[in-house]
């Protein structure tokens, strides 16, 4: 099948990326998908469809909120924005991620970090 699902990404990574993208301002699904793809320089190539369930999950958790609006192309689009709870979560997740990344780095390349 060869289809990658969000579970295939490092757990929670997609959520973090979405929150990070929305920290810059409200955006609709299409924009977020491209922002993530570009921001990771193609390393994290995500099937764009798998973004949507993640958006719904985050909305259920109250970290983001949605509203219908009109896009730059003059098309109807569903916009998402970060809620205050989402902003807190972003900080928490970023810190956690940094600690994890450092830990992994120390284990993988002990020589280069010394």
């Amino acid at each position, binding site marked *: *099948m060869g*289809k990658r699902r969000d579970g295939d990404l490092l757990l929670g990574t997609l959520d973090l990326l979405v929150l990070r993208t929305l920290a810059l301002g409200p955006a*609709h*699904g*299409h924009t977020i*998908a491209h922002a993530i793809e570009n921001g990771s320089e193609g390393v994290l190539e995500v*099937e*764009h*469809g*798998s973004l*949507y*369930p993640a958006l*719904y*999950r985050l909305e*259920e958790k109250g970290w983001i909120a949605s509203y219908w609006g009109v*896009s730059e*192309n003059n*098309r*109807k*689009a*569903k916009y998402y924005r970060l809620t205050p709870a989402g902003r807190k979560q972003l900080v928490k997740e970023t810190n956690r991620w940094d600690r994890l990344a450092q830990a992994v780095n120390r284990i993988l390349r002990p020589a280069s970090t010394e």
Partner: protein
Amino acid sequence: MSWFPLRRRDRHDRESAEELASYIDHETDLNIERGMSPEDARAAAFHKLGNPTRIREEMYEMFSVDWLEGWWRDLRQGARSLRRSRTFTLTAAVTLALGIGANTAVFSVSDAVLLRPLPFPQPERLVQVVVHFKTQGRESHQVSHAGRAWEVLREGITTADLVACKMGAGGVNLATGAGAEYVRQQRVGAGFFRILGVPPLIGREFTGEEDRPGGPPVAVLSHSLWRRRFSSDPAIVGRSILLKGEPHTVVGVMPESFQSTANADLWTPIRPSAEGEGGGMNYSIIGRLRDGVTWAAANGQLAQVGSSLLTKANTADSRAEFRFLSLQDGLTQDTRRPILLLLGTVGIVLLICCVNLAGLLLARCAARSREMATRLALGGGRSHVFRQMIAESLLLAALGGALGLALGTLGTIGLSHIARQTYDIWQPVSLDLRVLCATAGVALLTSLVFGLAPAMYASRTDIREALAGGASRASTAGRHWPGRLLVVAEISLSVILLAAAGLLIRTFAHLNTISPGFDGSGVLTASLSLDDARYHDAARVVQFYRDALGRLSGTPGIEFAAAGLTLPDETALNTAFRLPDSPRFREQWLTSNVIYVTPEYFRVLRIRLLRGREFRDSDTAESQPVTIVNESFVRRYLGDSEPLGRRIDGKTEVVGVVADVRHASNWGNFGPLAPAPAMYVPAAQMEGEALKLFHTWFSPSLLVRSSAPSAVTMQALRDAVAKVDPELPVASFRTLDEIRARTLVRQRMQAVLLAVMAALALLLSGVGLYGLVAHSVVERTREFGIRMALGATKGRVLSSVIASGMTPAICGVLLGAVLARAAARLLSTMIWGIPPGDPLTFAGVVTLLLLVAAVASSVPALKVLGLDPARVLRLD
């Protein structure tokens, strides 16, 4: 469940559809900007997004308000899917229902007959005294004891409260103002009710004074007799009733709930002694262990006290010992084996049901592998597919359970009706919910295991392979082995049941058709109780017979009339005698059935006289004692020497030999119904004491051969008795067919029940085999198309399909036959007249199963004939 969350979810679903459409629009715009054509731009957008169905499904599930709702949806979907495949659903549900229903019914009845504790306080402390024999490795119990044994145990046993009694009831005459009635009397010793733990409702039970030879005549009434004949009069205690032609004082009335060891209307003291009746083994002894006494201690004392009575029985190759048996085991001794057999067979039926269900589910799942693959390819989540399969299994189990409950209820009613004619039922029969739940649980487990295993398999289905027709292309032979094994298993189980049923049916047929030795057509009998003070004198009995038979002989239509202590097909009295003129048996006590008869007995029953003469009116108490013996008696005891003129006990002369007739004998090992050695003696030569004793055990019969309609004959019998003795009620009118049916009721019940189980098994395995073949035909359609296109004839394809069903069937039949041959040994005590390996039964069973297998594999195989290779190949 509220519909509100579902509406909310549907709104969400529409919204996510719009949102995905919005993405497609934006991406298409972007692609057009990059220079693609509008069509390509849109296609590329879809590619970038991924599968919209799957995304929506995933979100759809996230909206599910709770776990329950998800299940609710899966159940509804499962119900739809089951409704679409009606044949499968019906077959599976009926299979389940049969298994659950049959088990519930059989267990409910077995519980009442065999398993539930007796309805007495502390039933586990109740005991029955038996003598346990071990002869050359074979164990047996003797439950009856002589008066001498009772006296020894009564004096020596301190660990239990014991009482002598009769376990069964006999018929006696009760005369009240409303006329004479035949009622059932059980004779019990003082302390019987105390030991069972049920005091009389009013009055008291028998005292030791009343329970000794020559004691005052007293009686205790059952609640139902008290209500029916004495209008529940509380002043009955102390009053006198005319029982057995003698005034008896009523000393007590038992409560309505009381059930004795026999179905009795009243109780009288047994008055045990070492004389008369007590000279033979005619007493049962039951008791209650005293508080604080262990079984081991009680048994130890009993064995020690009883050992003095068994010095002769203990020989080099035989050990005998007195033992306590729990009263429940004692009372259910005869029913235990048949009931356990029934439980075993119904368990096998359940097993076959489960195997069948498993086969059905496997086949269905394989048939659906393409559907599954399609759904997965369209983006259906694996967990989703998985859950739906579970939901289907649950629905199936629920449906089967509901049907099973209905079947079980009907079955319990029907079966308890049959059982009531056959066994003593100690408890009210009620539908056993525990069993219903247990069997339903087994069914649920089966459907889950066999619904899930394939579901797991399905969720791992390689979509491309399945879609490309891999299921039909791959070698199917290898993939069908679970289904085939299941068919082998269920067919061999069916062979076991069919063989067992066949053996019991053959036994029953044998018992019914053993050369009867008499002609019962046109014969009507009337039994009556002569256990009556007015008939304690032998002369009175002879006079009664002479007067009644004289009246009957004068009645138009009646050819012959006679009287006899017992009739053919009934259990006969047996007695011990000696043959002092026999070189071989001079020193031994011998046993034979004994039947007193009047001269025309042999003519009424058309029993052939082979040698010598019949009885005559001139054979009286004053003349030479004579006897007529049967062929079995001659063969067994008199050998080849001239039987006529031989003397029994040194005095009674053999004057004739008659053909054997069937008897039920409770000695020797003749089977339920078979010719046994018998001596006929003239009623007129019976001694008073012997007559009195025999009449306490047996109600004799008048019997007539008549060409008149039975209603007329019945009236003639009733009139004759009433004219001679207006106080003497007729207990029952019976034909000889009815007597035989009564004697063989257990054998018939066992044969019928086992046949029903075997028929179920046969049906189920036929269905299972049909399913296997039908499924493989569907699956291999493509393969057949190719083979036919390549030149295979339809006949060849057809025979290969039939062979795919017959191969496991033949394996199953062979395996089953071997197992059944071994299992037949367990039945050996229930089989008569045929060997346990009866070739006819086994050949019949094998033929029947092969026939069913042939039909079950041919019918679906015939579909192949309608195949058009060209169309089949175009299909994919």
